[in-house]
């Protein structure tokens, strides 16, 4: 059996806003093994983003234990967490979160400037990763010169550039039309096939059906898990979908 890459024991997270306490997570147990493609589903406010932030070491849990590759993350300080985010985690956000003033190349380069080790042939690697997400020729474009789908591809290339252990995608298709969303899912499936561990948050069931396992979250607790025996193949779905030109024609 594959190695356990993420192990969470009774993880709880309480936000405090003045006197009000919001219990975003209330005791989550979760295991994810290397090479898995998992989705986390749940209604808005159920704690999905909070869970992602904890997995990605952006935040520390209020209580509970979290092991990432057998490192007890709950014991680490700010700098150590930053180093883990930089080298072991790749984030993809719903709103892309690119730096608007930087070009595609510079955005993808960004994680490498905080990387502890020297990357050999850095710019060659950056060009390669940009090409892999299908953006060859758009290296110099600023985010506002790219479509939503293209921006998300930049974000994916940025998430991959330091060769992280896990990819965390929080509603990566939420701001995209269904065809573009399907294209993004195709990229994730390809990455997973190449061995990347991917955790994806969504509230759309058909997106979740592209993954191997669905974890259902509600009010800060895992209420159900579901194995998907035959995940939807995004590439095949795309082939059946009308092309952009067809859509424009049919709308006319």
């Amino acid at each position: 059996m594959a190695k356990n890459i993420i192990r969470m024991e009774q993880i709880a997270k309480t936000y405090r806003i003045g006197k009000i306490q919001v219990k975003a997570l209330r005791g989550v147990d979760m295991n994810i093994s290397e090479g898995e493609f998992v989705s986390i589903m749940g209604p808005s406010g159920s704690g999905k983003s909070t869970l992602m932030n904890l997995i990605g070491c952006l935040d520390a849990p209020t209580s509970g234990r979290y092991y990432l590759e057998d490192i007890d993350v709950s014991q680490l300080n700010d700098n150590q967490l930053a180093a883990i985010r930089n080298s072991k985690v790749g984030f993809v956000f719903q709103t892309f979160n690119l730096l608007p003033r930087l070009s595609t190349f510079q955005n993808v380069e960004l994680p490498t400037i905080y990387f502890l080790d020297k990357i050999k042939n850095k710019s060659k690697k950056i060009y390669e990763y940009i090409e892999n997400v299908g953006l060859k020729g758009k290296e110099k474009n600023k985010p506002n010169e790219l479509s939503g789908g293209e921006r998300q591809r930049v974000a994916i290339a940025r998430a991959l550039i330091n060769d992280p252990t896990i990819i965390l995608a929080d509603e990566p298709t939420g701001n995209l039309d269904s065809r573009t969303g399907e294209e993004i899912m195709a990229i994730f499936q390809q990455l997973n096939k190449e061995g990347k561990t991917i955790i994806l948050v969504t509230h759309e069931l058909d997106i979740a059906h592209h993954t191997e396992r669905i974890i259902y979250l509600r009010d800060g607790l895992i209420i159900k898990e579901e194995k998907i025996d035959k995940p939807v193949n995004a590439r095949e779905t795309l082939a059946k979908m009308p092309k952009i030109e067809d859509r424009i024609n049919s709308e006319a």
Partner: protein
Amino acid sequence: MGSFSENIKIAFQSLFLNKLRSVLTMLGIIIGVGAVVAVMSIGSGAQDSVIASIQGIGSNLIIVIPGSSQEDMGALNQFSTANKESLKLEDVEAIKKYSRHVNGVIPVILSAAPVTYLDKGINASVYASSEDAEKVYNFEIERGKFFSKSDVANSANVACIGPTVADKLFSDEDPLGKTMKVMGRNFKIIGTIKSKGTNMFGQDQDNAIAVPITTAMNKLYGQKYLSMIIADTETEKDIDIATEEMTRIIRKQHALKSGDKNDFSIQSQTEILDALSTVTNIFTITIGSIAAISLLVGGIGIMNIMLVSVTERTREIGIRKAIGAKNRDILIQFLTESVVLSLSGGIMGIIFAGIIALVLNKYSPITATISPFSILLAVSFSTFVGLFFGIYPAMRAARLNPIEALRFE
């Protein structure tokens, strides 16, 4: 951690993104640094030229002027009301005779008079003195010779002329041997004096002639008293004892009793230089404080704009942290930005001061020199202002919680 050049690049990018805002922010620094550097250039320029003009006279000098000294201003206070006629040629003779530590001593009468040759004329400074002035006063003869002991003894109508006089009256002609008129009297030109340049008041020191003291007293002005007596010593060590000696001799010459105040004042060159540098230092300190205040205001402006910048870029900070920037990386990024802002202001200030100095040098008698020291001072000051006023905003940026920052709209 992010590389240094990367931070510099980011800093310049954000400065260029808000050009107008950046320049307005830098204004305080530009004015502050500009004022400091400009004042220092004028201060040291003026000081340099005063020192040069005083040192140009000679070295190890002791200067005696008529009138009792008032407080410490002594030699500077040329308008003292007391007896202006107390110094006589006999005082010089007595010093020559009795002093053992004085090397050379000369009588001086300084005035201005019209000098003409044929149809050309000029108003020149007239230095009347003895043959020893060549050494003591540092007159360097370019061609011909200085007047001699016998010229002085005979009240000879001879003169040496400065380059400006030579130029104005004779242009291409050779002035040597020519006869010119000083206050309507004929003087034969026996030598030309090397250029001494301009002094701090913008006076052309080359627009001058030198004549024997006796000739001036007997034939030009009909006066029996001197403007000053200048003496020099062999070495600097002798100055104090020679000053005492001269005081004693002159007092005896003037028949002053033990309780009487000196009817002259005596000061060494170094004392005069000290007094002058005190004046210029006060000037420098005053303007320096004004400049310090504008640097303070400029620094607060930088702090303000950096706080705005941190708020505006909260999301950027969140993104950077999410992809692995450490608190220190963010701190250095914003600190670099404030230093770049302030340093750019400083450099513009230096350029601004440079322009002021150029204008002053060209259109006013003041000489301004921008020293490497003042540039170094300006650069380190503006770096310091950037660091000092940038640290708080940068710390705020560094301490932002990445999640909160990412949620920021």
